[in-house]
């Protein structure tokens, strides 16, 4: 559905993207994760042909992003945290304006989304809160049943209630559409994303399915017989090694239930007990972010 290859984007002397490459499988909910300034928004704006790449290519729906025409845009829903819509039109007026551009626009679906998101149709867009505006952007992105939905930091600045409403609205209509969502917090797309790509300083650190990701990350607690100390030699897949009292804690990024015991005991002596706990996405993200910062990935 989306394929990005060796994508570069320069702003003056600053490289916002440095040879980025990933692909979004059809039907997936693909999360583009990275800290602020990692290049997520730049990537999305290139995909939408709002920005032009300096080098490399990005294709979506089989078309080079630079050649996207209204035909492709009729199949793409786009929601961004900073989307400028005509502030002096009411929600209803703007939706009415958009309708004719999409031959597949479903007015019943539009009505049900408006109801679900509890949008004040008669209010001017300029008078809407940030959250309301995002919900409105979502409402304008779904009624034509896009094949591809691109969400750029859609949860930014939303309170939990609005975020949940937004997510409910999104998930109910998701159907078979492919979703690309960017976020700087993995926790926000917990339960939504099927795939994830992690960006750091304009480069891709990894891309994999969510099940693989959650499956290979474990927070491991090793209880020792004596006061714990960081081992001199440590496999590179073990991150964030800490010693507190007799407990040695680290994150195993290549968790293997069968082999863990042996791998630990071969490197650390005096092991009394080993406990490996699944990690929440947020913790995985922060671990990776720190490792990226320290140059360990």
């Amino acid at each position: 559905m989306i394929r990005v290859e060796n994508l570069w984007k320069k702003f003056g002397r600053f490289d916002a993207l440095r040879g980025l490459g990933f692909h979004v499988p059809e039907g997936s909910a693909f999360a583009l994760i990275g800290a602020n300034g990692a290049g997520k928004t730049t990537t999305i704006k290139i995909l939408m042909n709002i920005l032009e790449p300096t080098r490399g290519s990005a294709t979506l729906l089989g078309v080079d992003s630079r050649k996207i025409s209204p035909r492709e845009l009729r199949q793409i829903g786009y929601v961004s945290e900073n989307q400028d819509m005509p502030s002096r039109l009411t929600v209803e007026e703007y939706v009415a304006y958009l309708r004719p551009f999409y031959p597949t626009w479903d007015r019943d679906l539009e009505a049900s989304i408006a109801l679900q998101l509890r949008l004040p149709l008669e209010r001017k867009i300029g008078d809407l809160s940030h959250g309301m505006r995002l919900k409105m952007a979502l409402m304008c992105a779904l009624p034509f049943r896009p094949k591809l939905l691109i969400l750029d930091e859609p949860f930014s600045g939303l309170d939990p209630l609005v975020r949940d409403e937004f997510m409910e609205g999104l998930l109910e209509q998701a159907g078979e559409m492919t979703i690309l969502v960017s976020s700087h917090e993995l926790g926000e797309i917990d339960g939504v994303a099927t795939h994830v790509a992690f960006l750091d300083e304009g480069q891709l650190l990894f891309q994999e399915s969510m099940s693989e990701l959650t499956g290979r990350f474990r927070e491991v607690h090793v209880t020792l017989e004596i006061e714990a100390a960081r081992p001199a030699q440590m496999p590179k897949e073990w991150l964030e090694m800490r010693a507190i009292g007799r407990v040695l804690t680290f994150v195993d990024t290549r968790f293997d239930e069968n082999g863990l015991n042996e791998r630990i005991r071969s490197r650390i002596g005096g092991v009394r007990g080993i406990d490996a706990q699944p990690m929440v996405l947020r913790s995985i993200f922060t671990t990776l972010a720190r490792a990226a910062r320290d140059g360990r990935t």
Partner: protein
Amino acid sequence: MVWHIFKKDWKLAWVFVLLVSVIHWMDAAIIHKLGLFGEDPTLGMLAEVLPVLAIFASMFLIAAIVHLDPIPGVRQDWLARPIARRDLVLEKFLFVVLMVNGPILAEVLLQGLANGFSFRLSLLAAAWQTEFLFFAFTLPLFSFASVTQNMTQAFILGSGCAFLIGMFTTVASDLNGRAHGTLEPLPWSGVGWVGETARFVLVVAAAITILGLQYFRRKTLVSRFLVALFGFMILATLFLPWKPAFAIEQKLSPKPNAGRDAVVAFDSGLGKFRSPSGLRASSEQRRRYNVGEHASVFLPLEVAGIHTDAFLLTDRVEVRFISMDGKIAFHGIGEEVEVAKEGPNAVADPIYQEIQLPTSVYRDTKDQPVRAQVDYSLTLFRLRGSYSIPALGGDERMPDFGWCETKMNEAETAVELRCMQPGKGPTCATLFLENKATGQRNPVRSSCHGDYSPYSGWYTGDNMAQFGANIPFRDSSGLAKFPVDGPQLPQSRVVIRVYEPEDHFTRSLTIPEIRLKDWEAQ
């Protein structure tokens, strides 16, 4: 989808459109209310201010329309919508033309009709004004607005451009003054329209390029560079040379070769120039080029070969005084000369070519023999029509002179003739007071200015030419006595003779050797 986007823009901008239209129409109403003599000072002040306000408001309106869907930037929602760029640019173009130029067309049309002119004449004036503003105002501003994201950016960039244009024109004007008017030959001349047309062509080329780049490729940086480049090229047209421009005008002469017999020769027999008496009422000479102190020399001329009821006007007089060793001592522009031959027995006044030189140049060359080379670009006018209007309380409509009224001025020294005509008005006319009973006449006054543009229009106003003249009948100092004076006015009339261009041609005059000192005024 053009009409669909149009409706959205109307919903967003109708208040602004209406406001700007109202300013235009208020302006038209005030000008109509002022009448020909414009005696109400408050309305007069408003008539000065409103056209400027209207043009600024139109400027902001164009930017506002374009900024409803701005091109630069990465946050606009429309960028992610299936809106065909072609539809968008067409819609903006249509909206700008209809909402900015439309009210102006209506303004001029209504102004013409309200002042009693025919629908055809009024519509023609309105169409020309709209066309002029389209090329000179709407299109360049539309392109400019497309390279800006919002009003603040447009205002800042626009102010910067206005400053640079101001600087450029000031420096150019100063340099032109130093070059004695030889550097910027076209502006304010009869063939100024050639330079203007060149600017229009550049504007169209710039607009097509910039709008294409912006709406289809969103290349704002490149477009901004092109704005600067085309802007510079447009300014450079100020320096377009005279000869090719006048050659174009010659090709367009309504009656080529009508002036083939015209001869301009040096006639030393006329003697030195003497300052005219108070009775001589030639048109005021205009000075545009002098910088600092200057001295004048007057070369006596013989102008022959002009047919009856003709009027010869110099469009440009290029003068070179060359010293005997071949160096150019002076290169500049001579004063305008008019030669009228009204009626078969017209008595010709002696004709002098005035040349103003910087005092320093004059001082250095006055005693030396120099060769004078004078290149004339001339226009011969033929009489188109002769009309008359009562000297007092006259109210006439004349086919070639529009609608005119007369009254006595407040000082009771002259008859005020004020006229209005759709379009640019007459180019050349002569006027005199005549006692209908006795046939006595006051000296003829001429009012001729070269403007041979095939169109009419201006940035402000309503394309209704307002013109006139004060025709004196009493000298307040008491030195001069007019044949037709105050008591005769009730049985007198103003005779208006309207001339139209017939042929444009050039003549060269070479005087092998003269001393400037010999041709000072006596």
